[in-house]
């Protein structure tokens, strides 16, 4: 008998169908990867097993977890099963822990609510669970608070909570999506080890095919609340039939058609840039302490090329971006765009500022929801001395929208009427409207589903060729950088540790850190044998 058997599960929330006849099963000791893009119903499938569905949900069908019919059990029985028979790990480690309780107490709670043991005994076992999750006592005492830990460490605490009672099934919903690539590799290895050691079943939910390709025994591909295709891994990668599965596979390693650029004239020149941040004063009269976020960085971006900047969180890439945009003054060094400094006197240089624009990661958070698209897209006009008005302004907005594949009629809508991918197109239109030379893409495709990401990457490549744009492509996602840039820089601890032609850097990395980063990137089985 399977550990988990889901049969013909359908779910609707306030009448809107979310899941349609989902069936899958997980055996003890088996890792099943559930893959799908946003809205595919993969998280709702997991929450149906936990019976932690949002209000207004009605589920039909069968969810049987080691003999328990989860859809029929009363709430009190379900509370007894959650945490004991089935544990769950979530996507966002930064918010998954109670910020005002020490980690030890939070792990011990799982034990205390299910077993009649003393507090001391529960704490002892919580310590063992944390040790198993590679949080040793000397560095991570039980009295630590979540805010004292990094994202990866917090995710280990969440995992410790979920496995403290050695449940039969562990559900991990995008457990590594919010983490850096090296941390992701470590956390995935940890999950795999725990599964093997305890003979647990693992339901690993992700949008990233490559993540599951390495470790899953079975793969289930979902779209629009339905299972599209499923089968054993890695064989499924060769036998995939369904057009959606194939499209997903193709999109996850999408290479746009683009011309290689190797111009010589530098457009942006960054020389020995140093950026310090003042730290909070420890004592009232102590001297001011500084944190050096960028330590003497130098590089050029040549006109027409696409330069990648990769590095993990905290490496200083965002600080460097703000300095390039002239949003903050640097402590020493110079940043010149087209021969002119980006920061003149005490304020950003407007003449230079209008030659560059930026597109940010979050297509939801970077727009004012109360503004119409026309006003959002026309915002950069404040950088121009003679901004077009009336008809000319409307024509410019229409041109910008059409250049990114939207229509002129979209100008009168509000952003909530658009999907994530369309919003990112609006962001690109906003960047293009004043015809800049340099576009800084700050994690611009990181939050998008793979198929949407492939479209945006194509769009950027087309625009680059048509308009002769220069790109600075900042990302933690190495596979994307590999596919869309001519040259790339690798940044660590505020320094550039490696620089070179992208293909060289990826195929023959020199610096130990670059090697480590590249080794940590999960790969698809088909990537190893080029067609």
């Amino acid at each position, binding site marked *: 008998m399977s550990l988990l058997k889901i049969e013909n599960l359908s779910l609707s929330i306030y009448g809107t169908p979310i899941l349609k006849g989902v069936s899958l099963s997980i055996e003890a000791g088996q890792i099943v990867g559930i893959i799908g893009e946003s809205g595919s119903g993969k998280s709702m499938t997991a929450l149906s097993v936990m019976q932690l569905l949002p209000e207004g949900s009605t589920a039909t069908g069968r969810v049987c977890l080691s003999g328990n019919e989860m859809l029929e059990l009363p709430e009190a029985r379900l509370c007894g099963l959650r945490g*004991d028979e089935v544990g769950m790990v979530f996507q966002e480690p930064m918010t998954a822990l109670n910020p005002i309780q020490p980690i030890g107490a939070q792990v011990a709670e799982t034990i205390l609510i299910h077993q009649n043991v003393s507090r001391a005994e529960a704490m002892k076992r919580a310590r063992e669970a944390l040790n198993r999750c590679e949080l040793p006592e000397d560095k991570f005492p039980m009295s630590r608070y979540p805010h004292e830990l990094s994202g990866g460490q917090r995710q280990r605490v969440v995992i410790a909570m979920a496995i403290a009672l050695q449940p039969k099934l562990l559900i991990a919903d995008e457990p590594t999506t919010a983490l850096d690539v090296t941390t992701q590799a470590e956390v995935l290895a940890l999950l795999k080890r725990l599964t093997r050691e305890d003979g647990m079943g693992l339901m690993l939910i992700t949008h990233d095919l490559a993540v599951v390709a390495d470790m899953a025994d079975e793969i289930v591909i979902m779209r629009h609340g339905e299972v599209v295709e499923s089968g054993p891994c890695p064989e499924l990668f060769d036998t995939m039939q369904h057009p959606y599965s194939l499209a997903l596979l193709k999109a996850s390693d999408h290479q746009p058609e683009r011309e290689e650029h190797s111009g010589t004239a530098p457009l942006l020149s960054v020389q020995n840039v140093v950026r310090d941040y003042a730290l909070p004063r420890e004592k009232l009269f102590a001297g001011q302490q500084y944190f050096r976020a960028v330590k003497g960085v130098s590089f050029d971006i040549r006109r027409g090329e696409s330069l990648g900047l990769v590095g993990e969180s905290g490496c200083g890439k965002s600080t460097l971006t703000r300095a390039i945009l002239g949003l903050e003054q640097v402590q020493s060094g110079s940043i010149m765009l087209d021969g002119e400094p980006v920061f003149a006197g005490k304020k950003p240089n407007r003449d230079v500022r209008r030659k560059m624009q930026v597109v940010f990661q979050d297509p939801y958070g970077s727009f004012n929801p109360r503004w119409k698209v026309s006003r959002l897209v026309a915002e950069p006009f404040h950088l121009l001395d003679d901004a077009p008005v009336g008809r000319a302004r409307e024509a410019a907005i229409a041109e910008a929208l059409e250049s990114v594949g939207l229509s002129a009629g979209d100008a009168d809508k509000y952003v909530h009427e658009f999907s994530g991918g369309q919003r990112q197109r609006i962001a690109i239109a906003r960047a293009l409207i004043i015809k800049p030379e340099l576009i800084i893409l700050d994690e611009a495709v990181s939050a998008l589903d793979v198929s949407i990401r492939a479209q945006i990457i194509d769009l950027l490549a087309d625009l680059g060729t048509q308009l002769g744009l220069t790109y600075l492509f900042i990302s933690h996602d190495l596979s994307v950088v590999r596919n869309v840039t001519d040259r790339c820089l690798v940044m660590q601890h505020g320094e550039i540790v490696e620089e070179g032609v992208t293909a060289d850097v990826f195929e023959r990395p020199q610096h130990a850190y670059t090697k480590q980063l590249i080794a940590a990137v999960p790969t698809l089985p088909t990537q190893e044998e080029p067609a």
Partner: protein
Amino acid sequence: MLRFVLKRLVSLWLSLVVASVVIFLFVEVVPGDPAAYMLGMNAQEDTLNALREQLGLNGSLLERYLSWVGGMLRGDFGTSYTYRTPVSEMIGERMWISLPLAVFALALSTLIAFPAGIWAASKRGSIADVSVMSLTQLGVAIPNFWFAMLMVLLFAVNLRWFSAGGFAGWDVGFLPAMKSLTLPAVALALPQASILARVMRSSLLDTLGEDYIRTARAKGLSRRQALWKHALRNALIPVLTIIGLQFSFLMAGAIIIENVFFLPGLGRLVFQSISARDLIVVESVVMLLVFAVILVNFLVDVAYALVDPRLRVRS
């Protein structure tokens, strides 16, 4: 934690110094000659001189400020010009009405607001929630002096359970004294409790939507356990802010209610001494109220740090 408290104490003293300078300048310098202000337009020159002498207005500004502050530190607030009694005595007497009244009202308001807010949040959208929300809406909307008069009509005039006003004094015993503060405290607590209950409810609802509540539920906690063990303490920060503001308001802002119930409290004292142009009393009472507000803010800061470890200084 100790360092956090010490740092807060330093800023408490700095705030007090700044506040005392501002009050001193506004009362003694901005209106021009305080003696002339107190005596009115038709005062004789020799009376003015005598008053200046009595108030110590002949020294330099710095001397006057230092002697005022020095006096307060020794507990000497000067002598009231209108009543001819030491201000410290007057404040002392009235403080023993205003302070218990404020504490009483705050306790009542918290005792009503916490259960109401928690109940409404835990049963969101139910009849319980809707009734709590409607009642608190009413509580915020009704002016407290009008509510006070209604209570006097019902409980004092018709039912004769309480006296209509005045203060029995602490000499007659604790219970009779508290009894004469009950109606005023209820009148003060009603709008405060309504605001506090609404803040409690919305803060708790926000917290209940957090990811760590879902984590707690995935561990096997019931909805109720997750609320009490994880949501409540996290929801307290905005509630503490409001409690701090309300206490300051209750100390200083009870003027109208004190008037309705003929309670000789601090609020009435400020009111009377402003009408009588008794600057010495005004200056001291205002300083005292400012001190109370700053002290309460300090206590709220410490309470924040007790609730939330992220606010403590890293040691």
